[in-house]
């Protein structure tokens, strides 16, 4: 299992009653899909807020970053960077700067 740090936007912190960073034990290989599956399993109140319930697609106003790179468009089953899977760097879920 990989111990992965995840940084959450403020709205989801409030929704789940957690702080800005959480830790998740993710089944290896540590991929976006496995990470998000684990996140939604442990915090079911976030189901549907990051990925569409039915299609599993990332919601359009959200992006994923890690190690100063945008992973939003990377394949869901691609292994995450080693720094993420080893817990050295966090995986960021970030909302678009928009709205009022």
């Amino acid at each position, binding site marked *: 299992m990989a111990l992965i740090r995840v940084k959450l936007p403020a709205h989801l912190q409030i929704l789940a009653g957690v702080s800005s960073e959480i830790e998740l034990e993710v089944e290896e290989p540590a991929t976006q899909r496995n990470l998000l599956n684990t996140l939604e399993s442990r915090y*079911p109140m976030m189901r549907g807020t990051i990925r569409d319930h039915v299609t599993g697609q990332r919601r359009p106003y959200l992006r994923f970053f890690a190690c100063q790179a945008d992973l939003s468009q990377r394949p869901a089953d691609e292994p995450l960077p080693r720094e993420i899977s080893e817990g050295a760097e966090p995986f960021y879920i970030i*909302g678009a700067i928009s*709205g009022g």
Partner: protein
Amino acid sequence: MSRVRVLVGTRKGAFILSSDGKREKWDISGPIFAGWEIFHMKGSPVNKERLYASQTTDWFGQIIQRSEDGGKTWEQPGTPHGEQATGADGMPAGESNKFVYDTSGENGKPLLTHQWYDGSPHPWEFKRVWHLEPSLTEPDTVFAGVEDAALFKTINGGKTWQEVSGLRGHGTGSQWQPGAGGLCLHTILLDPDNSERIYTAISAAGAFRTDNGGKDWKPINQGLRSEHIPNPTAEIGHCVHRIALHPSRPDVLFMQKHWDVMRSDDAGESWVEISGNLPSDFGFVIDVHAHEPETIYVLPLKSDGERFPPEGKLRVYRSRSGGNEWEPLTKGLPQKDCYVNVLRDAMAVDSLEACGIYFGTTGGQVYCSADNGDSWTAIVRDLPAVLSVEVQTWP
């Protein structure tokens, strides 16, 4: 002791305003769900401590919240904090925000597209819940009006939702087009005398009715005239903004349309215009006095292009004759330099002996009249833009 609780949904959270029956001193609680849009919040008529709320943002989508203690604490139905992530059946929890259109074809042909603004086919995409209407008899049963327009229903307190698909599938759904605010089902009226009868209204498709609990639906738009569509008297395509009824006469309906205030005395089979002497018949809200079924309230706006009060004067108009003859109600309301909007779900009435009327503005004010509309005071002045107002009454 009599009291009221006003449930206010805003662009940046929910607020609960409480007072005794005098409605002079108010306790303000909130923001609840700070930062999220609360499109609508409503209590169960069967259990007034049970509240349902539609919480949404463009970033994170839809959340349904439920409270069992009048809004002090909340949970997503089926997903309480700290509980198992899967239910007893092994299915994952966290489905209270899962609204999936029925494409099974069991209620007519699968409906895959509606019309986009330019008339081209566009797939149905769930965006948000505009309105939650708890059952009049079952606390676990709630109807949800959503965008893109459809009616959903839960029978387990909001844990899971199923589409009442006969509405979209009745035959005209593929021709529905969105209004400026989206293709939204915003009005749900449950007939207190006939549990099989439900009215809904959709912008910009029109009004619809079922007489068999949601299985079959039909448009009820005869008599409406809308100049913005190719055939002004078409069966559908009318931008209905709001419908209201008095529970003692559920066959009598009052409608604020995009333009025109309308009335039906036959459950929507036909409509007649009752705009009468209003300074403008554009507006969003309409409501009926709690004890006088022929007394109705609207709040005229200048036009669809200028969605603020005519002459900068915030005036509620009251008709005591079921329409056509209207009087402005201005005492306590700003009569100059007022350019707020009052959105379609943002007016409500209480049922105290001296009927209270409430409305919220996009400027963040929530006004109350404790004397049938004769005079008004602002309960609060500086909330985020108000999206919805509901009232609960303890006589």
